[in-house]
């Protein structure tokens, strides 16, 4: 039986009737049309589906849309403001943090959370912070550089 959910995504209000079993990632991608977050592993390991729900980075493939009813969601599409990229996005570009780009939106959302909680992380803290995100292309080094660059910029 479908249920109505009301939520705010990237500052806009949405209301939809959804099946309880509809995963948040499918809701965002297929109902709302925000395809930035991706499905990478389906087992809550890879983090490609990471979005922010009420200020917390979560894996949207392991959450039902109905659980997000009433929440504020931010996806990678909602980060750029006033025509300029979020510092984390900009750093991923500057430091070549993306190759195939599939993990990138989830990475960016996780990095945003890492830096919100620890504005100047060490390399080790960055690497541990990325435990829930797999990148198969970059070997992580340029991602680590991007996090450092974003931290420097946001702290400045």
């Amino acid at each position: 039986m479908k249920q109505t959910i009301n939520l705010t995504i990237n500052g806009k209000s949405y209301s939809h009737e959804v099946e309880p079993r509809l995963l948040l990632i499918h809701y965002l991608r297929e109902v709302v049309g925000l395809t930035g977050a991706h499905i990478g592993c389906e087992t809550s390991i890879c983090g490609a589906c990471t979005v922010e729900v009420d200020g917390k980075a979560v894996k949207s493939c392991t959450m039902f849309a109905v659980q997000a009813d009433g929440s504020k969601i931010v996806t990678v599409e909602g980060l750029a403001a006033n025509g300029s990229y979020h510092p984390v996005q900009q750093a991923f570009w500057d430091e070549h943090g993306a190759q195939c780009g599939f993990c990138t939106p989830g990475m960016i959302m996780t990095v945003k959370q890492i830096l919100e909680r620890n504005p100047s992380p060490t390399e080790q803290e960055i690497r541990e912070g990325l435990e829930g995100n797999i990148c198969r292309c970059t070997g992580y080094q340029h991602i680590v550089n991007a996090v450092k660059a974003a931290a420097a910029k946001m702290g400045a």
Partner: protein
Amino acid sequence: MATTTTKTEPLIGKRIKRREDPRLITGTATYVDDIQMPGMHHAAIVRSPHAAAKILGINVKPALDLPGVVAVFTGEDTKDVGPVPCGASLPGLRVPHHYILARDRVYFVGHPVAVVVATDRYIARDAADLVEVDYEPLPAVADPEKALAPGAPAVHPEWPDNVAFTYHQEGGDPDKAFAEADVVVKQRIVSQRLIPSAMETRGVVADWRPGDKALTVYDSTQIPHLLRTLLAGALGIPENRVRVVAPEVGGGFGSKLNVYAEDILMGFVAMRIGKPVKWIESRRENFMCTIHGRGHVDYYEIAAKRDGTVLGMKLKLIQDLGAYHQLLTPAIPTLSVLMMPGLYRFKNIKADIVGVFTNCVPTDAYRGAGRPEATHGVERMMDILAAELNMDPAEIRLRNFPEPEEFPFATATGLTYDSGDYAAPLKKALEIIDYPRLRAEQRLARDAGRLMGIGISTYGEICAFGPSPATPAGGWESATVKIEPSGKVTVMTGASPHGQGEETTFAQIAADELGVSIDDVLVLHGDTSVVQYGIGTFGSRATAVGGTAVYFALQELKEKIKRFGAMLLESDDVSVTNGQCICNRTGNAKTLAEIAGASYRAMKLPPNTQPGLVSTYFWEPPNFAFPFGAHIVVTEVDRETGDITIKRYVAVDDCGRIINPLLVAGQVHGGVVQGIGQALCEQAVYDENGQLITGEFTDYAAPRASRVPWIETDHTVTPSPVNPLGVKGVGEAGTIGASPAVVNSVVDALKPLGVRHIDMPMTPEKIWRIINKGTNA
């Protein structure tokens, strides 16, 4: 009209930020699963839970009865479609008929048995559970050596010995070399099965237009044009009515250099239901049904003189092929044989490959494709020889490299190495890591009871695939460069990138050749109805072959620009520079936009010149290119737990001339980490009944950020003479160099315990057992 411009700085060699990134960092790129179409249906595939079984019956009715389900197809429906193609040919190769859906028998876990088509992804998934398949399980064999043993279950009953092919290659006089050797060392070396696991799984959207009798297929592929040709053949549609689009592709590593049953199946389904259909591979399917890499059991012998000079090498290579041949499956181990001498003067070689069928998913090209296995073998053997002779591993390598003046260097396997100074990266790496100090530190560590190791690998690789006679489907690459009427530059490449950044590197090449701003260049790829026929991105070929095609297309285009420029400037001495055509005598110039405008308006044409500024070039490489390098790894082993920590990783690569150092570094990092993954933690494990027990990322350990070291990169530059850009290739180098460097380091750490070899992956438990028993458990 004369215009003045400031000289543009050359872009080749610069750290240019990627052109493709704005869409990736904003989440607005379009991957296959992002495609929505009116009326689009969804497919789910019913797969075998058995590694070997007879299909006694299939009842599709319960699935068909589910509201929202529009069709269910089985092997009976698709028997005249296909087969899944094998593009490799070897003498006497046994090629099983590879139906796109199983008919009366399944051969591996995940084998597609039926496809359910529904209006909704969720309904399709529900319906897949409702298809009832009656199996009679049969004995299965998942290990290639067990498959060769007498009495093993036959994967294909028609070939009870499970041998798909044997292949023999010899160079020089190996028997004489071994007879004359002072020392012979032997070792069995396993390169385990790996799962490529691109972060984007495969996916297909197929759209059939009955009115046009035309099929459009959006496919996460590395080879859109080859896929189009083979899809057209498999589906019986004229090739010119098939369009393949590779949209944004989320990584491939070779796993998307293929034509899969599902590619053909979705075309079939779209034609049958007359509606677009989407299939997105689940991660489990990706692990079970997309090709795996490696799968070698190698028996090496090398012969040498007491001073460490190598004389000969023998290799018996057992390749686990899996149940079928995918596009290149049987060809991959032949690349291992070509690469087996590594960077050394092995003048006498003998290799025998046995390709073995097992009840597993097929193996095929995975980052390095045959060369990592070979390099791992030779680099391990060089260390084993060094240990046997009590020589330093760096010294034994330096002793056996050909000298720079010996290039082009002919190998005993029939290759001609293009250019090289193999000692240079090793010496540089030794210097960076301060080798003598490091060895001293190691002595102190050992005295203190610590297990510290230093591992070296000096790798070479065959890349820039390749001369067409040596590749199954042509080894050239194509490029079209157009200057639009407004002066903007469009490059269309037949190479189809999936993360490598060719939109940037090819734009750098074009911008430099024409002297225009990189912002005026757009690189297009991946759509067979937009781009001229091409081969694709794999085998570290995109820049060396595809980039060279762009370069030559630009040369032709520049000639044409000059003809128009000469006409407009009324001069017979003009050159193209800084986005202009300039009269070398007067300094008068016309901008590219002015020339392009004139060429398209065509009020007046130079003699024997067509209107417009377009040039297409298909470049056939005369040889492969052969990058090389040296990696040095420092590890420490926790004696109590067997945990391995990589303390330092130095990679000095020589990939010829570098177009974009930022992107080259990215390729090296990524490649190294996949090599570290193989060395330390990645393995596709089938149990003895052929069940894949590493079925998800919860058990298949892809390296995480916290497990990989900082990688210190540096380069030597030995331009390739094979192409005018002087580039060699770097996509696979890291992977090839890494695994032997890491294993050599850990073996070195355990050397005081008498350890001489460890097979991958070097899991903590394996190391702990070795420490406690001094043997390779």
